[in-house]
């Protein structure tokens, strides 16, 4: 093995190992942040349905197809991403062993000869489609300014984040094509072994036959290294980006609630208190105290169940929730996406505080430094946001928990709601009517 090849192997392992390690550390930090949420019990009997949801909604993109234009464009990028993993696997094998197109060698020697050419062609065609889709996505975000991409919460970093991902995707595609075009041109010169016809890179390779072998080798190596370095950069970028959804959409669709959307989660702690209160013969002894009494509702991220925090990290800020929110459509301050983004931002802030200032540090802040009462009080609980989310995030459940905190811990209601509460409690009706008049309409019918 020549020196250049050995240096390349060492460099590759350094980049892959170093880059992978830094990314892994950040992913572990996110895991810790998510697990700051409360423990949640899952019924193993639901697992079948949960796997099915993950398969249909995350893997199968079922809910994306409510809007078919972005769905098809997204599908190109998604499928290209999935299949490019085969090429990435080959890059990793080649990088570590110093081989060249290892998978071709393996397949060519077997009964699967020709499969390699088929796979690469498939990836190349998908890559062109993904390239077109990426350009259209950039146009939709920056030139057409599709309303959901230019809402207030998308100013600054979220907007830049969206564009960076698209630029990185273009970089990945440039890398793959440089590599394959260079390779095909070198194959034509007899430098590399023939791997069959690559429809797209083969056609482009014809433009480069005039180049010297050295120039083509540089082009091929540049493409190979560039693609891999962008992959590593991407991996390190993911945990800071909305693009984390490419990974977390899968667990999120698995852990998302299976209950009817109309059902708001019960609070068993309150049931216990009310049953005690209403019991004419309360038990003589106080039931054993189960540790510190938990507060009601959510003031900060620890008050949510961990799957809620997972869902906040899974959000890719597409804004379908906000675009379909009746409050947002009538220019109220509420945007369900902004709620989800705030939960993630607060989780990140908590993680950062702990890392920099220790576990005991309290910054005196809460989710209400991110989310106002005006926002949560504008919700009609219509479930449009829940229905729309392509990966089953539930902004409504977050809003309800925040409302619970405001009402039950801070008694921070509105006058009108207080009146409704009083009527409900005293008259058994939401309005101020005498309970004995509840069936008065019957008399009107009979007369």
């Amino acid at each position, binding site marked *: 093995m020549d020196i250049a090849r050995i240096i390349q192997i060492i460099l590759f392992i350094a980049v892959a190992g170093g880059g992978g390690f830094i990314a892994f550390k950040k992913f572990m930090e996110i895991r810790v942040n998510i697990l700051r949420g409360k423990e949640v019990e899952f019924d193993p009997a639901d697992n079948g349905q949960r796997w099915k949801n993950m398969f249909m909604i995350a893997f199968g993109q079922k809910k994306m197809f*409510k809007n078919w234009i972005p769905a098809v464009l997204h599908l190109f990028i998604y499928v290209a991403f999935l299949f490019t993993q085969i090429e990435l696997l080959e890059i990793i094998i080649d990088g570590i062993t110093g081989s060249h197109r290892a998978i071709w060698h393996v397949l060519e020697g077997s009964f699967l000869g020709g499969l390699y050419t088929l796979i690469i062609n498939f990836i190349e065609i998908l890559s062109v489609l993904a390239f077109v889709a990426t350009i259209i996505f950039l146009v939709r975000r920056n030139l057409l300014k599709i309303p959901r991409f230019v809402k207030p919460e998308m100013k600054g970093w979220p907007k830049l984040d969206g564009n960076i991902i698209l630029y990185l995707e273009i970089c990945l595609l440039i890398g793959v094509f440089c590599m394959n075009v260079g390779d095909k041109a070198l194959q034509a010169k007899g430098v590399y072994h023939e791997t069959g016809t690559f429809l797209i890179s083969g056609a482009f390779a014809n433009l480069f036959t005039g180049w010297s072998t050295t120039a083509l080798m540089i082009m091929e190596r540049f493409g190979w290294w560039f693609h891999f370095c962008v992959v590593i950069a991407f991996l390190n970028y993911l945990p800071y980006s909305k693009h984390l959804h490419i990974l977390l959409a899968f667990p999120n669709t698995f852990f998302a609630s299976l*209950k*009817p*959307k*109309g*059902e*708001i989660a*019960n*609070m*068993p702690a*309150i*049931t216990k*208190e*009310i049953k005690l209160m*209403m019991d004419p013969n309360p038990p003589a002894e106080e039931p054993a105290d189960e540790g510190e009494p938990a507060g*009601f*509702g959510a003031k900060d991220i620890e008050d949510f169940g961990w799957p809620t925090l997972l869902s906040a990290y899974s959000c890719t800020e597409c804004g379908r929730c906000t675009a*379909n929110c*009746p*409050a947002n*459509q*009538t*220019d*109220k*301050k509420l945007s369900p996406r902004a709620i989800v983004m705030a939960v993630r931002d607060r989780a990140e802030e908590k993680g950062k505080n702990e890392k920099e200032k220790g576990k005991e540090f309290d910054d005196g802040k809460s989710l209400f430094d991110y989310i106002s009462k*005006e926002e949560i009080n*504008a*919700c*009609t*609980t*219509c*479930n*449009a946001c*829940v229905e729309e989310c392509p990966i089953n995030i539930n902004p409504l459940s977050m809003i*309800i928990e*925040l409302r*619970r905190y405001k*009402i*039950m811990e801070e008694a921070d*209601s*509105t006058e*009108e*709601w207080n*009146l*409704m509460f009083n009527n*409900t*409690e005293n008259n*058994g*009706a*939401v*309005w101020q*009517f005498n*309970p004995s*008049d*509840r*069936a*008065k*309409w*019957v008399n009107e*019918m009979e007369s």
Partner: protein
Amino acid sequence: MSTQVPLMSEMAAAGKDVEILFWVGCAGSFDQRAQLVTKAFVKILNKLEISFAILGEEESCTGDPARRAGNEFLFQMMAIQNIEVLNMYEVKKIVTACPHCFNTLKNEYPPLGGNFEVIHHSTYLQTLIDEGKIKLKGGGAYKGKKITYHDSCYLGRANNIYEAPRKVLELLDAELVEMKRCKTKGLCCGAGGAQMFKEEEEGGIRVNQERTKDVLESKAKIVAAACPFCNTMLTDGIKGEEKQDEIKVKDIAELIEESML
């Protein structure tokens, strides 16, 4: 035909079984507009000689608005009281004309010990139609008229009931048109989540005004609702556009009752 609206307590005292409990709800009991829907539904039940009863004074708010506003204590107090009453009468089957009561009774009472078969009146009417029990007058009042159906969030997205109310309307032989935002994309009327009981937060226009735009665009002369709160919101929205003489908001029970033999 005389009106029969027996109370559950009377029926129990007389040792008589009832087939269904009609849960009237606060709107159906006290709101003047919703009372008309209650009466229409009772007339249908009476015409078909279906055995039912109401709780009367023993019925209380299900707690839906309290829970959605964040007052879980109050919700559970109401729920537990109601469940006690319902269990005392050994109620098996509940029908209600309010999607909010429907959702709460059906989905939110079981974890608190209230297990009943809960049916919204749209589904109930559809069953009666399917069984051939509801027969309409020839050339009914709504034949050929443009009707649009407004999806209630608590039937549609909350409980996946989109078809039953539409099936009921089909019987009218009217021209059913859809608004541009319908079914899973149906726009809320603005009342849910306890908004009915407070001023809207600051913003551009009211949600019901936004929804009224869809109504006007559909060119329908009748908006069919299946929820007392949607009914109020849409009626107000249409009044706001001064179209109340041209466009009427009707509950599906009213449309059926008016056309029945």
